[in-house]
């Protein structure tokens, strides 16, 4: 699978497409990497009143071009923010209902939007021990989610090896029944397209293809049977303005290589 074109990298595509999903006035809790970059991009381009929060405790962040932090717990995140809070307290803002969108990357996702960032293989004898949840579980449990990730068959699986961050669990009402009465997966953005979740079954559903990508291509790169929205959209390719702004933010290609 290759979506890298002469014009932009897959990561750039992810950042631009996810940035477009954010609306002015929203309050967005963003993880490090593409989410931080995309939220900052949205803020610079079409959503100046977007409020960005970071897990490190930053409320109303303003990231400086070329000074992207290596995690959301660095002083670079806090510079010229509106407020800094303790880590627990910033996560409690999610629990109190202050956040519109949680926005993060994913290592492995399944048809119900459950994310795994803990174990590949049997958790007791893992093939790979991944870095873990961080605030991911909290964010995914407590608010509407956008996930940005590269589209690979091994990452889009029928059932994740381990539910680190809950999507719709086993679908239908199971999330609510587990005690998670708010939030849930809203969109998954990949380098192939954009995905929602069918209302009743809560199964992943292709809602938009990126320009030049076919439904077959997406299905081929997905480890479970995809639902396809009745009205399937085609996204506009990243504009020059978007890419220019993005590259201005991340000139060292820290997150967009």
């Amino acid at each position, binding site marked *: 699978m290759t979506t890298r074109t002469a014009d932009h990298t897959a990561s750039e595509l992810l950042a631009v497409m996810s940035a477009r999903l954010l609306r002015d006035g929203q309050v967005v809790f963003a993880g490090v990497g593409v989410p931080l970059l995309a939220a900052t991009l949205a803020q610079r381009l079409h959503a100046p009143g977007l409020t960005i929060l970071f897990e490190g405790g930053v409320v109303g962040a303003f990231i400086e071009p070329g000074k992207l932090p*290596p995690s959301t717990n660095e002083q670079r995140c806090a510079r010229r923010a509106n407020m800094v*809070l303790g880590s627990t307290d910033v996560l409690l803002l999610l629990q109190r209902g202050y956040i519109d969108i949680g926005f993060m990357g994913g290592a492995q996702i399944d048809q119900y939007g459950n994310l795994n960032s803990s174990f590949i293989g049997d958790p007791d004898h893992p093939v790979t*021990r991944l870095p*873990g949840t961080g605030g991911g579980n909290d964010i995914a*449990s407590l608010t509407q989610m956008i996930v940005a990730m590269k589209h690979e068959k091994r990452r889009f699986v029928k059932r994740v090896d381990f539910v680190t961050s809950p999507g719709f669990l086993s679908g239908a009402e199971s999330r609510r029944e587990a005690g998670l009465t708010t939030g849930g997966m809203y969109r998954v953005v990949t380098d192939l397209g954009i995905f929602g979740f069918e209302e009743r079954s809560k199964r992943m559903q292709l809602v938009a293809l990126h320009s030049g990508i076919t439904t077959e291509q997406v299905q081929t790169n997905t480890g479970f049977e995809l639902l396809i929205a009745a009205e399937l959209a085609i996204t506009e390719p990243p504009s020059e303005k978007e890419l220019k702004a993005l590259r201005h933010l991340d000139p060292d290609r820290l997150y967009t290589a």
Partner: protein
Amino acid sequence: MTPDYAELCHRTHERDRSLREKVMSLDEAAALVADNASVGIGGSTLSRTPMAMIWALIRAGRKDLFCARSITSNEGELLFASGASRHLLTSWFSQGIVWGVSRIMRLYTETGRARFEEWSHMAVGLRFRAGAMGVPFLPMRSMMGSDIAHRLPETRLIDCPFTGAKLMLVPALNPDVALIHVQRCDAYGNAQIDGLPFMDLDLAMAANRVILTTERIVSNNKIRRAPDQTKIPFMAVDAVVEAPFGSAPHECYGIYEPCFEHLDAYAAQIRRDPEEGVRAYLERYVYGPKSWAEYLDLLGLRELLDARRRGTSIHDD
């Protein structure tokens, strides 16, 4: 794990909580931490990591510490690789997202040589907070339905006695000792923290002993001119160690940013050969130098100055 309340209070009562000077050396402070102790580590990822104290504990040959930290970077790798800890409780463990998945963490956990006990970030925070509040648990609304909670027998899922809603209860975590690095404190341990406080305020109050390292020891008079800037009270503090660049190669808000070149080189060395790479690193940077100053000299003045230049910029707005 959840302590009996009378026992918890007894341990606190036994401490000398009076206003007294408690300045000591890194080595003296390290002697306050016993093998097998539970240790709460302040800061998060690359920020305000109490690196000097961790460095001193590894040098002192401490073994089998149970460590808990909000988010763990390469200090966790050094704790595992040195044998100082074989059990780390945290929400995320890798050097940092830009350096990929930690090869040391993988090496130790996948082979069963050490344990990475994973809780959600908020759960770690609320466990410290419960400990700080002197209550046995706090309720929360995440971790439900996920596989994380399934691997944690210490959690309880309840029906709320007020609303009937499902709630997750997480137990208090009261470490034997907390290691916290701050920008400044006085000789009594009244600490001021600039920038992101992470979980350090709760951690300090939860722990049964607190060791502060500080970029600078200031006068009690300075503290008392702005008592609303004090974040950790002297009562909770048992040791004060002045350790300039005490978080290096990590950062200390408003004073210095991380030493990225050093961290990149470290990551490359680990990538080439995790086991040998970390051994050589420990030899050169932890066991090798005679003092913290000599360690800083190995990091290199040029890199420290550059880190400081980048770090101080936040005061110039």
